[in-house]
């Protein structure tokens, strides 16, 4: 990679250093302070024609602003000031090379100024294209071959050996491996572990698994170490009789979440009181519960984190109907009085659950298994689920707006511009009866490319086949990802 500017820029840097660029950039490209913004607003006009453009540039040799419609070129020629800076992005034009040139050192200054600017404005970190560091550039040069994920190859697919009724684990592992954001995290080698190579960290084990899935090997994998790690750290699973894929999923997230802490300092662990590990970033949402006292109409609101939503399947015929019922206000009745903080006595109340924040991966658990003292049974009721799901109707903000009847645009609820669309990417199915059942999973390898995972057997599947399956655990991924809003 060649980002060492040009001979002319290097001569300039040798004579005057990087200071001129730093000043121009901090004041007139990325304004790192209020003062700088004032300067830019009042002085960035062409010194020749007085217009604010097109494409303002600043001379790097002297204080001179001019537009690219000829005036900056005139200045450059007449004064023999051959380097000038574009004021939108901070790139340098060399009049002797007749092209924009790129210098690593100056690019890094520009990046740091852009972060400072965002911080001073209190806005989110701007998009910046990825730049490899020296080692990464070296590795990219040495290893020229690129393995691409395509709908025609088995890269990213791998069968999993059944270790004796461990299809519940295989299905959850297939789901996790095919979670797009988790894949990016692990293939990007983002997990830096303190307990590395101790063999005790589940996150490291999953990291190795990703390498295995993308290695191109075809033989089924044996997940004995993974099972051992999860059972060691989630003792409440109490052995392999506890074979519910849903419970295993939650336990696995819990162990992963705890082991993510292996890599971080104590001080970084929690930001604003909430965990920032990759598991929580992807899977945690906030469930809001509003309890309204029927006597004084006082509302008590609590928000609890959740990793998945369990839905009753008796009655509704679709996932949306299940969610609609889940978020409906419910009268708690006289048998379940709750102490009202206003009235200070136990009152009847209504209660409503809504989604306050949505996770990136929305996991739904259809409660198909009923265990009571009298009878254990499986409910095979048909529940249709869509390939694309809009979660907006189940959000707290939306419900609030519906309740006050704010249908006109002037009263638009907060977050109305948020995109809450989700796409289905994995479905875990339970086949057969309660005591002689089997789990299989459908996973989406890439858009429109589905596979059925039945332990060691991976076969192609159609979206139709996936949507027609019974469905036990449904996994949806957010379609559009926003940039991180927190500025720390």
């Amino acid at each position, binding site marked *: *990679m*060649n980002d060492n500017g040009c001979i002319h820029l290097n001569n300039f840097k040798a004579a005057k250093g990087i200071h001129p660029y730093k000043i121009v950039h901090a004041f007139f490209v990325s304004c790192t302070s209020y003062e700088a913004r004032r300067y830019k*607003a*009042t*002085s960035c006009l062409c010194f020749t024609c*007085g*217009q*604010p453009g097109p*494409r303002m540039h600043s001379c790097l040799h002297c204080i001179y602003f001019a537009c690219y419609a000829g005036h900056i070129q005139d200045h450059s020629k007449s004064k023999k000031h051959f380097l000038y800076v574009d004021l939108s*992005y901070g790139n340098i034009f060399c009049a002797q090379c007749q092209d924009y040139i*790129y210098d690593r050192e100056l690019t890094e200054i520009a990046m740091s100024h852009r972060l400072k600017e965002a911080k001073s404005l209190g806005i989110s970190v701007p998009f910046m294209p990825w730049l*490899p560091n020296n080692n990464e550039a070296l590795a*990219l040069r040495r290893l*020229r*071959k*690129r*393995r*691409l994920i*395509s709908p*025609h190859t088995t890269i990213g*697919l791998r*069968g999993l050996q059944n270790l*004796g*009724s461990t*299809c*519940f684990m295989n299905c959850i592992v297939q789901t996790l491996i095919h979670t797009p954001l988790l894949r990016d995290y692990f293939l990007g080698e983002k997990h830096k572990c303190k307990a590395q190579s101790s063999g005790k960290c589940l996150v490291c084990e999953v990291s190795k698994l990703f390498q295995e899935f993308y290695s*191109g090997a*075809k033989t089924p994998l044996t997940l004995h170490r993974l099972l*051992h790690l999860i*059972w060691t750290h989630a*003792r*409440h699973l*109490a*052995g*392999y*009789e*506890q*074979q*519910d894929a*849903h419970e295993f999923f*939650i336990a696995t997230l819990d162990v992963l979440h*705890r082991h993510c802490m292996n890599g971080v300092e104590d001080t970084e662990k929690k930001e604003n009181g909430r965990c920032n590990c990759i598991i*929580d970033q992807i899977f*945690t949402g906030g469930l809001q519960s509003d309890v309204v006292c029927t006597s004084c109409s006082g509302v008590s609101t*609590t928000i*609890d984190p959740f*990793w998945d*939503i*369990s839905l*009753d399947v008796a009655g509704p015929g679709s996932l949306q109907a299940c969610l609609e019922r889940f978020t409906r206000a419910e009268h*708690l009745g006289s048998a379940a009085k709750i102490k009202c903080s206003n009235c200070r006595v136990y009152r009847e109340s209504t209660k409503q659950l809504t989604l306050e924040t949505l996770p990136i991966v929305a996991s739904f658990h259809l409660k198909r*298994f009923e*265990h009571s003292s009298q009878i254990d049974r499986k409910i095979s009721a048909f529940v249709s689920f869509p390939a694309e799901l809009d979660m907006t109707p189940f959000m707290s903000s939306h419900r609030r707006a519906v309740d006050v009847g704010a249908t006109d645009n002037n009263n638009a609820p907060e977050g109305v511009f948020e995109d809450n669309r989700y796409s289905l990417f994995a479905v875990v199915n339970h086949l057969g009866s*309660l*005591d*002689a*059942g089997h789990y299989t999973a459908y996973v989406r390898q890439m858009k429109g490319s589905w596979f059925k995972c039945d332990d060691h*057997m*991976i076969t*192609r599947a159609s979206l139709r086949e996936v949507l027609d399956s019974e469905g036990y655990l449904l996994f949806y991924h957010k379609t559009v990802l926003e940039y991180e809003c927190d500025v720390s």
Partner: protein
Amino acid sequence: MNTIVSELSMNDLNNKFFEIMQNEGNAEEAANFIYDSIFDDVTLGFMFEFHHGLKTGLTDLIEGEKEEEDGYKIVNSPECDVFGFSIMKKTPDSNCSCPNCERPVSATRFAPHLEKCMGMGRNSSRIASRRIASNSREPTSYAGLLSDDDDDADWAGGSLQSERRKRRIKNNNNRKPNKLHNGNNRNNGNQNSDSNDGSATYETMTANEKKNLLLQICGVVSEHTKKLCTRSTRCPQHTEEQRRALRNTVLEPSTPESQTIGLTAEEAGSPPDSSPSSSCSSSSRKRDRHRAVPKIKNKRERNMSPNGRE
């Protein structure tokens, strides 16, 4: 729009702005100007990114050369899976090394082996007691006292073992069935529900031995056999109260330790509070929510647990 002279003060700029915006035509022109500027800026940003990639060689570096795909092509055949393995054929079994006991175990029987090996399932007590005995720092003290019965049949190979298994199945049939965890009626071939295999008594042990032992096993003394229970400290046969009471009597003189031991079992099983709980939409959850966040641990009681394949 009027030509603006450079080096305006902020005040001038504000005044000028309001003056110009009075005119509706100007306002529209300004809006268009802002839109065009933003559009130009975004376009320029894209052009710069592209130019930067080409000029510095970054694009070429990232793209590299596409790897030959022939070796990884998906096999499209109704008789094969995507890798080209026949769907009729069973996968060949392989051995894996158990991370717990480091012995080779047949992969297809690994889960039932691990359950017992880790001392988690209902068949675990003998293995657990053997492990405790062999791992103990004072191997002479109670190792001999505990049951050192025959092994389980998971270890790869051995026809003698299958003989033993048959014998056990026979034995089991005469017994009352165990308390089932999930209505799972599987016959593992070597169910042995009697947890009181150990013939040790606390009288013969030193205080240190007792303490060590009770850190690892349940230890409650059976009313019928007068033997101590060698299951894990979370064994379901005995309650937490029984365990605590036993520790209080056995470890009488050293009260602080006995309390810690009594607590470990509870603490070990409960997930940390920082973990979000799995939400359960049943009506019981709705009633519970405002009192306490349901914990994963509690969930098991009302959780729906289907069983996997045999």
